[in-house]
């Protein structure tokens, strides 16, 4: 079985996916001025999330290819801080998507600005009270991003069985967003029933260290309690999608909730029965944790963007570019999937390359039909969004604020 080498290849493929989607979403945001500004703001925040992920994957790649211990010591805190920057994007998306939680400009901007303020407050407060404040801060912020998933769950519970298509769209879009953002938490759902033991709990902590026993106990309970929110949300989705009348059923949401449910079962078995020091476990840990935000999130977000008109597909030039990106995405994604299969099953490189080629050649024939299917449906599937909540220049302001905030965190990680 392949080991560390496969992890590096997966990281590089995830890097490519994040860069491709981040870059193209950013391009569409500023190019496609016909689309509603709120939808463009959503697309922009998604693109910034992918661009930060891209930087994280670039650092992972550098870390995996580097043999120097010193490099790892520098990069580890940097990755930790950049991960903190992604949590701010999580919060922003939960506040804004599928529809902003405030309909007026002032409270909405205030809510958006409060997210980096909370993040920095947690960072400084942790520094005052804890020896390993960066870890404590990371875990607190991670836990709070899970708290934000309550907004998505509220959208879902209120509107999933509504008779209005637009309202149902909000419920579906909100839950797809939650799956995309906190998917790695959902793969550990058996912790809800205290299954999997310490290994499964610690998988969520990414091997972070704790300053002392009392703190670790408190932090653990805090982190674990807030992780239960999306996990319980997943069960609500699974049960609702099974029970909902046929006419209102959404196959994608049903299949995704089933996927996370089954993935959680496989994950708990792997964690329970396979030794922690084996190559398989290292690769599995990467697949279960990084794989969800490196491979599953991109596909989900592209689906969201196309299905819910975050990109205006009525314009032919935009439509063609989206199609091209969709094909590129499918190519990189298929390679990533085969990389994972190849890592677990020893299939020769040449054979997997041939299989990818065959699948893609068939896929490209079907791609127009699949794409048109999603895009055609999307013409009827709109999300409502309040008018005049943002202005054109807000897009640039958000980009610059994110760049400054991320650089600030990165510098903090480098020179602390």
């Amino acid at each position, binding site marked *: 079985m392949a080991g560390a080498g496969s992890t590096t290849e997966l990281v590089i493929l995830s890097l490519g996916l994040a860069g491709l989607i981040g870059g193209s979403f950013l391009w569409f945001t500023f190019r496609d001025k016909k689309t509603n500004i709120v939808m463009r703001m959503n697309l922009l925040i998604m693109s910034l999330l992918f661009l930060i992920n891209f930087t994280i994957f670039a650092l992972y790649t550098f870390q995996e290819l580097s043999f120097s211990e010193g490099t790892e010591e520098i990069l580890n805190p940097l990755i930790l801080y950049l991960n903190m920057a992604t949590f701010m994007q999580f919060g922003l998306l939960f506040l804004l998507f599928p529809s*902003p939680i405030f309909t007026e400009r002032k409270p909405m901007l205030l809510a958006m600005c409060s997210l980096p303020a909370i993040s920095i407050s947690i960072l400084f407060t942790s520094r005052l009270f804890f020896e390993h404040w960066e870890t404590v801060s990371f875990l607190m912020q991670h836990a709070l991003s899970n708290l934000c998933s309550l907004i998505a769950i509220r959208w879902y519970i209120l*509107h999933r069985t509504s008779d209005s298509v637009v309202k149902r769209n909000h419920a579906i879009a909100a839950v797809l967003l939650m799956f995309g953002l906190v998917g790695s938490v959902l793969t550990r759902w058996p912790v809800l029933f205290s299954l999997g033991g*310490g290994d499964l*709990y610690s998988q969520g902590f990414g091997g972070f260290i704790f300053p002392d026993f009392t703190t670790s106990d408190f932090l653990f309970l805090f982190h674990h*309690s807030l992780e239960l929110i999306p996990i319980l949300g997943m069960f609500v989705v699974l049960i609702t999608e099974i029970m909902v009348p046929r006419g209102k059923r959404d196959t994608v949401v049903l299949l995704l909730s089933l996927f996370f449910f089954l993935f959680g079962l496989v994950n708990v078995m792997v964690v329970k029965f396979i030794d922690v020091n084996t190559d398989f476990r290292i690769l599995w840990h990467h697949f279960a944790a990084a794989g969800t935000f490196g491979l599953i999130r991109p596909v989900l977000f592209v689906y969201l963007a196309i299905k819910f008109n975050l990109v205006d597909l009525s314009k032919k030039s935009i439509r063609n570019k989206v199609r091209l990106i969709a094909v590129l995405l499918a190519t990189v994604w298929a390679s990533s999937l085969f990389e994972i299969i190849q890592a677990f099953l020893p299939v020769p490189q040449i054979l997997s390359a041939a299989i990818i080629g065959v699948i893609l050649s068939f896929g490209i024939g079907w791609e127009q039909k699949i794409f048109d299917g999603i895009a055609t449906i999307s013409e009827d599937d709109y999300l409502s969004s309040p008018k005049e909540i943002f202005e054109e220049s807000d897009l640039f302001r958000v980009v610059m604020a994110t760049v400054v905030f991320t650089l600030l965190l990165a510098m903090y990680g480098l020179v602390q």
Partner: protein
Amino acid sequence: MFNPLLKSAEESGERNQFIFFGILVAVILIDSIILVIGDHSIDINDHLDNTDEWEITFSNMSLTSNSEVLISDNNEEVVTFEIPSNLSDDGWMVQEIYILITYGETSLGDFDCDTVSAEFDHDEKTGVSSVSEQSSGESSDCTEIQMNKAWRYYVDGVYDNISKLEAENILEMEDVGIDVYAYIRVNTDSTIPNNDNDENISVDFTITLQKVESITRV
């Protein structure tokens, strides 16, 4: 100010939301009780209760064996030492393999010592690199031949920047349950023709084992 879509128009919407919160609070409470006072708390702490510093003490033990072999001229004998595999149950690891080969000139009136050459190897389980190694030797003047292979020797003390799990598995050595092979070859040298055809060789194995005795948080 709030998005009207986030306010429920129907009573059932708020009721469902209330049920969700109720279940969530109940699950958090049950899980917290299980984690704090249940059996899982110990399990979790083993994984998460990591600090920078652990005081670790180690135990040492030696296994010895002596063999006498008679080797005829231009022949080679293999002497094997088997390290019992059941020692791994107690956490023992091989820290050093030491082999001492001694002999004298046993032929009457012969003033020329025989030439004895030796080398050794062993089964490999962990593949951990040794810190010092002398895997062969030769003597033609009846002096002893010493061969050894040693892995890092751990001394009692405080080890930092490791988790408890890493502290438990700190020993980077060879596993027990391996066989050590000493290959010994004799070329007889004699001042009297046809007087010296073989030699008695004494082979002493000393295997030093080490294990983690205790781990205490500092």
